[in-house]
């Protein structure tokens, strides 16, 4: 009720009308839009400069056939989107400039929004043909893009025949995600008809160059996603399912990957390297991977290191020929004890344990840690978060991956990892028995272990 007595805005408006009538129809000068133009220019510059910088995970820098196909699909779409972007933003700016009426200024600040005159533009309610036009037009555009897109999509998963003379033309790899690292189970003659892989490795995924490698992604615990952006898009690794995917590189080199499905505590630290080597190198690498170790005899070099490994690490890690792989993805009560107090495990009110209770039987909790038989041949460890050889990238890109063990390794980082791994990478969850716990090793033990690990070539 009071608004009426205060005079209302119409009076103020009317008084303003006379004062401002002259201004209201004037368009503001383009200068006022300088900030817009400036802003958009800076924004565009951001993009141009931003994309030029060096990034190992760059999705726009394909090195493989599949990534290249995706890149060829997305580039024209970026251009179309860019054109639509310019048209719409241009229309917004043009309309804003062309049809703007100037606001009253001064102390009437607050009623800026009210019109000070009674002028109206033509009252257009719509235009049927225009509506149909901008319904049908985009529909046709979208249909064209859709056909184009589906065409690429259905070939994304195809596997071409291996090149002439490839030593393992049918090699397939089961890629297993686990919190928070990747395991690769190689089936040299394909997975069909084989129940056991020929060998198992971790972190570094080695493939022969210019050959489509059929992979099957799965997981032991939660959902992960296997992604090497320069070679192909990502594929989720889902427990209980295997998803076919393809890895192929056109060039020799080492390509960074990152788990992209949120997988818990150490998700950011779950990476991988995919290394493309020449066909000959691949044959040599496979031959080496197939070698089992023999236990070191007492008195020989690194005997103490191996014994330390057997007492401290062999619960989870396997070295073929030295320790047994007696379980698959399961843990035992002893394993649990390493993580601390089992009583802390989540209890229900009635005293029973929850779904995640530790039973000693197979459950989805990770127990099997990376197979370390050929640890020293890999460029990285601990979910590829740490580089074993600081020059690994350069050496691998030049085709020297198989000779990595001859270069210097980062001893300090490896020691730090053995000293207290949960500090180096947030990975040990006592109540879940996953990740590498702090083993409370002495400095002397760490030295012996590092020496031993580095002979595992």
């Amino acid at each position, binding site marked *: 009720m009071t608004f009426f007595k205060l005079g209302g805005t119409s009076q103020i408006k009317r008084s303003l009308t006379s004062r401002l009538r002259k201004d209201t129809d004037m368009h503001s000068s383009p200068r006022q839009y300088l900030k817009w133009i400036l802003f958009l220019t800076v924004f565009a510059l951001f993009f141009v400069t931003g994309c030029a910088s060096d990034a190992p995970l760059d999705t*726009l820098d394909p090195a493989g056939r599949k990534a290249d196909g995706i890149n060829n699909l997305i580039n024209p779409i970026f251009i179309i989107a860019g054109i639509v972007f310019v048209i719409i933003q241009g229309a917004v700016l043009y309309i804003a400039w062309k049809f703007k009426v100037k606001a009253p200024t001064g102390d009437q600040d607050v009623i800026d929004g009210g019109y000070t005159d009674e002028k109206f533009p033509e009252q257009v309610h719509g235009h049927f043909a225009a509506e149909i036009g901008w319904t049908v037009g985009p529909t046709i555009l979208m249909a064209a893009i859709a056909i184009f897109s589906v065409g690429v999509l259905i070939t*994304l998963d195809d596997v071409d025949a291996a090149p002439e003379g490839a030593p393992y033309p049918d090699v397939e790899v089961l890629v297993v995600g686990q919190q928070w690292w990747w395991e690769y189970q190689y089936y040299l003659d394909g997975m069909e008809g084989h129940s056991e892989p020929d060998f198992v490795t971790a972190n570094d995924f080695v493939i022969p160059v210019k050959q489509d490698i059929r992979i099957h992604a799965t997981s032991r615990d939660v959902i992960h996603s296997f992604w090497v952006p320069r070679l192909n898009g990502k594929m989720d690794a889902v427990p209980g399912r295997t998803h076919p995917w393809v890895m192929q590189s056109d060039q020799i080199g080492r390509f960074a990957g990152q788990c992209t499905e949120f997988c818990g505590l150490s998700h950011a630290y779950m990476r991988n390297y995919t290394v493309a080597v020449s066909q000959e190198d691949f044959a040599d690498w496979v031959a080496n991977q197939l070698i089992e170790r023999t236990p070191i005899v007492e008195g020989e070099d690194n005997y103490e290191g191996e014994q330390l490994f057997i007492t401290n690490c062999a619960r989870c890690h396997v070295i073929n020929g030295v320790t047994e792989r007696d379980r698959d993805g399961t843990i035992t009560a002893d394993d649990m004890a390493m993580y601390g107090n089992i009583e802390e495990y989540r209890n229900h009110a009635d005293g029973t344990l929850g779904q995640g209770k530790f039973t000693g039987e197979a459950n989805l909790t990770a127990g099997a840690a990376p197979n370390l038989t050929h640890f020293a041949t890999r460029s990285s460890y601990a979910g590829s978060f740490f580089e074993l050889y600081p020059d690994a990238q350069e050496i691998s890109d030049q085709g020297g991956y198989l000779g990595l063990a001859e270069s210097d390794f980062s001893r300090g980082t490896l020691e730090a990892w053995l000293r207290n791994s949960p500090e180096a990478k947030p990975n040990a969850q006592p109540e879940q028995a996953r990740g590498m716990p702090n083993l409370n090793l002495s400095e002397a033990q760490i030295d012996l272990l590092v020496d031993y690990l580095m002979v595992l070539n």
Partner: protein
Amino acid sequence: MAIVEKEEASGELEIGEAVTSEEKPLGAFTRPRGGNGWKDWLFTVDHKKIGIMYGAAGLLFFVIGGIYALFVRLQLARPANTILSAETYNQVFTMHGVVMIFLAAIPLAAAFANYLLPLQIGARDVAFPRLNAFSFWAFLGGGLFLLSSMFIGGWWENAPDGGWFAYAPNTGVIFSPSKGLDFFAIGLQITGIASLVGAINLIVTVLNMRSPGMTLMKMPVLSWMLFIVQLLLLFAMPVISVALFLLTFDRLFDANFYNVAEGADPLLWQHLFWIFGHPEVYILVLPSFGVISEIIPTFSRKPIFGYPFMVFSGITIGFLGWGVWAHHMFTSGIGPVAVAAFSVSTMFIAVPTGVKILNWLATMWGGRIRFSTPMLYATAVIAMFTIGGLSGVTHALAAADTQQTDTYYIVAHFHYVIFGGIILGFFGGFHFWWPKMFGYFLSEKQGKLGFWVMVLGFNITFGPQHILGLQGMSRRIQTYSQGQGFDLWNLVSTIGSFLIALATLMFVINILTSWRAFKAGKTPAPGPDPWDARSLEWMTASPVPEHNFDEVIQVERQDEFWHRKWGKNEKGEVVRRATAEEVAHDGSNTNVHLPAPSYWPLIAASGLPIIGYGLVYSLWLCIVGGLLILGGLYGWVFEPVDDPNAEGDHHDHDGDKTNLTLDEGSDATNEEVAID
């Protein structure tokens, strides 16, 4: 004053003999009376007060969710940063997503729906006023329950850590042993009840309580969009409820719905979540589309261009929204046929959104556009949402999405949609309806400055994230390494996020300083219609009186209010018929019968979070919560119906001497059913 006396009486909740039957023949069931104190807010059933409370709670949660975001940005500002541990980071980004979607965006949309929908259709209140109050209190209870997970059992020990999308099996007890995901599942269940109840309420309101003559196709676009949203909520909420029930049973009662060891397929959760989750996107964005569809015609001085196309494109978005959920799952391993089908359906949802954008531009075309703060925000929505839509098309291409999904490119995309398309629209709506809701203007000077800081900060924050994503930066990572090429743009993004925080602060300061300026008489009262607007909410006093309209409005045309102000002369020019003050009701009718306030919605709703705590900690508490709900419902059922002649009945301007005989005309609002 008589009011005070009545308030005191209403404050007594005790059931007992203290209340004499002479004064209160209904004993404990006597309904509370109106007034102006805090009790009036607690027990109110007025859709406007409930709308304002939704807005206030939504803004509060927006600020809290924003603080989480700032911590996320601080952690990512530099490579290998150590501000947040991985454990805390996972909880903080989860809480950011959950709070922003469920506790900020949904209630802000509910604020507009509650406040404006009855006004725009000329109704006196919603169909079920007490149910409306229940919705709000259930929402607030669920929200506070969820937030309490931060404190209970230690600081950041028990907050959910599975991401807002909470993919199974990472949400199982074995992988997330803290109680966080129990809080998540039960908290969202409670807010889901609130949304579902509210949706039913508003659907009935729209279908049954429109002013005489207001056919569906004469409703304002905002009302239409809000109506569509309620239908989406009605069908989407049960899906997430089912998913959350399964999760709760898995976690608390050893069920095996998502337990892979027992043969479950974890993709079940993903399908359920996204069948809810994708319509949810449109649940959030359509209200904002509605808001700017009101602002743009008003400030362009033209009617909305292509009204039926605006309505039907909204309906189309609502329908298509159900057929695109698996585009969140292109890399989940659902197979190339499913991927291709969802890829194509996703592309076509760009068509109706494109129609909307072009219609807004056509509305502005040829207009006399006044760029007041609300119009600036509305224009920014067109520009910014377009960017989000275009990046959306780039990942509708499923093959390309295998590179883009779960990277910062997606983060950039949905922030351009949710912040650029939704939050900016809501801020425009705040500035637009503020004088209507609170009877004073927000300062234009401060509003415009705040707008530029907001838009600049928004683009500096999320623009570079496109680059980061294409450069391969994954989502939800707590850290990155030097040499990955992410350093520069993360730092820029962090700086931008603080500009957004500054703009939000400026908005709060604007509210306070403008209020003080108004109180000091430095700014004029807005009158009923400060912007020369078009729809019915402007046809009553500002702030809106409790009874909304003095009499029932006979609607003849779309934009009825505007047509009462303006007509056309023989030359076809627009000429004034009457001033807004002449047309609008002044709110002086004291004779409108209104639904009385009630204790029971609050009491019944308060039982829900108590049951929640009971499920997490001790089942005994569930009995307490259950009794509260039962008691609340009992009181609800048995409290007196609105008898306009009875003592204790409620009228507007309570305390004034009111004429208790009914004026037929004024009471017709609720009774008139106008379905055509």
